[in-house]
């Protein structure tokens, strides 16, 4: 296992491209996305609705619904092994044990007609040689770990008997159960109340340290990223437009989109301001993307080059940014 500062990343995604065949033609939901994740690191993936966050997360586990979706290009290397080259059965075995994913909707993500105990033990027994009793005991201890009171009895509860926060914690317990190296968490707290969200995020962070896994935290909430992630990736229209260490990215964003996003989120301020800064316009239609920079239509610094040429990700002052004219860069 690699140490956090070791040069070899845990996950190396290169040029990942995912397309969907839809009624409106082919939609490229993820377009040549590349990024790395190092062991025991939390990486935030932020962006607006529909920019391809979930699809990116799903493709790491090869769970893109197919048809209509298909990974058409790129590689996903987990500890040097290209997941895309595995056969289906092999991949199945690695899901859960090496790479796991949890989802946004705690209400529907658990099977309503089985007890949570049986759902957790099923996962446990799939990946480890355990007896039913051992699995059950382990499940109870996992539930206790995610601070579910009275865990032993709760195992016999059905999902609908739990609150949203508890369900999400059950999901986390399931994710931890087989000790994966990478957990993809797709908006795990978005459906929860703020106070519950705080609880769950706290818990995730603690457990991550205990179990030493890497987390790819998918969210649209910049605040959450700022508070929990070491590094962040900002996506816009299927591509990563900026990436870097969280503090630096948020304190001195290079991409106009990142900057606009940061400015426009309402935050608790001492003074009421007359008008929030906005990013004008809307995200372009995924089936009808502009030729040049996809943000060009909404960008306040747009120049003619932006309409013709697509910028690629390059390093600017420590951040990686895909912009011809990054902010605060001296060109």
């Amino acid at each position, binding site marked *: 296992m690699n140490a956090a500062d070791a040069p070899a990343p845990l996950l190396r995604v290169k040029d990942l491209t995912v397309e969907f065949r839809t*009624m409106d033609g082919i939609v490229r939901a993820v377009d040549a996305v590349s990024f790395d994740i190092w062991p025991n690191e939390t990486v935030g993936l932020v962006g607006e609705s529909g920019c391809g966050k979930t699809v990116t997360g799903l493709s790491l586990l090869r769970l893109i619904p197919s048809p209509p979706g298909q990974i058409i290009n790129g590689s996903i290397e987990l500890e040097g092994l290209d997941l895309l080259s595995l056969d289906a059965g092999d991949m199945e075995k690695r899901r859960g044990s090496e790479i796991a994913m949890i989802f946004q909707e705690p209400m529907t993500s658990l099977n309503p007609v089985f007890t949570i105990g049986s759902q957790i033990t099923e996962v446990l027994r799939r990946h480890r040689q355990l007896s039913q009793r051992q699995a059950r005991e382990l499940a109870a201890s996992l539930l206790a770990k995610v601070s579910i009171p009275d865990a032993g009895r709760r195992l016999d509860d059905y999902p609908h008997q739990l609150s949203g926060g508890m369900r999400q914690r059950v999901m986390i317990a399931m994710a931890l159960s087989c000790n994966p190296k990478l957990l993809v968490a797709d908006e795990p707290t978005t459906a929860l109340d703020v106070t519950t969200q705080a609880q769950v995020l706290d818990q995730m962070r603690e457990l991550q340290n205990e179990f030493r896994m890497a987390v790819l935290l998918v969210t649209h909430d910049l605040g959450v990223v700022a508070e929990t992630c070491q590094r962040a990736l900002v996506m816009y229209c299927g591509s990563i437009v900026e990436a870097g260490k969280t503090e630096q990215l948020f304190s001195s964003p290079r991409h106009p989109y990142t900057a606009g996003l940061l400015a426009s989120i309402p935050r608790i301020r001492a003074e009421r301001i007359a008008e929030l800064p906005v990013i004008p316009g809307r995200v372009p239609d995924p089936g009808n993307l502009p030729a040049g920079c996809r943000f060009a239509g909404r960008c306040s610094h747009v120049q003619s080059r932006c309409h013709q040429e697509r910028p690629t990700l390059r390093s600017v002052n420590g951040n990686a940014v895909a912009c011809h004219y990054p902010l605060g860069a001296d060109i």
Partner: protein
Amino acid sequence: MNEFSSVAGARAVNRRNSIWRKVLRKFLADRTGVAGLAAVLVYFVAALGVWCGWWGTDWADLGGSKWEAVSAAHWFGTNIIGQDIFSRAIYATSTAFEVGVVVAVLATIIGGVLGAFAGFFAGSWIDELLLWAMNVLDAIPFYLFVAAVAYSLAGSPYAMHVAMITSFWIGTGRLVRGEVIKLRNMEYIEAAYAIGLSRFMIIFRHILPNTSHILLVQASIAFVSAIKAEVILSFLGIGIRDGMSWGLMIEESTKEVLAGFYNNFIAASLLMFGLVMAFNALSDALQDAMDPRKVA
């Protein structure tokens, strides 16, 4: 900051009813569905011709002798009293459409309206009453119910229609009710209340139009069911009274097939199979195209 014109306005303006357009586009992409539609249209033209008197007019004439074989004069031969089977089969097409359309339209309207009322007033006595009525009618086995209606309205040529409508609206009613219970909690209904719309206006302006996908699909199912039921009912002697239908032809044929005369049987069952098959394909494609989860 009028970004509307910059992004969406670039597309053609005033494309009315574009939700239906989207449905249409999806539908047209479905090859079996389109083939079904084409076949249904062919049948429809056949039926139309009968209504307009272009063909099939001699279905009641004794134009030949008994059980003539297939010939240029009689494409499907003649029946036991010398009537032209082809004309009768074509004429029966119009009957099928008549029965299908009358039953489908009325059953759908009744089911839609009553279902919408039940769903809208779910939990109240109106709903209870309508649910009760649905259960009551559901509890009576279909063919027995139809037979009972047919015999109690004996002599009326529409007994069969009445019976089918009375039983077919229930399916639609239940589906619409379920959908309306969902719709009822949509915020646009609340918005309509907030504006001051009366409940009736809400039902007719906001709720029913939003069940149109169910109504259309249900109507197409009712159409097929009506045609198929007609055959069995006519066989049982409680279907079409005067005129010609595939059911009557099959009824005629049940004795003939053992005499080795298959023309009535083949003509009617093939034509009917074709239409039902086409319509099934059509309604499947419609169902897919109109699935709200896949549309809006």
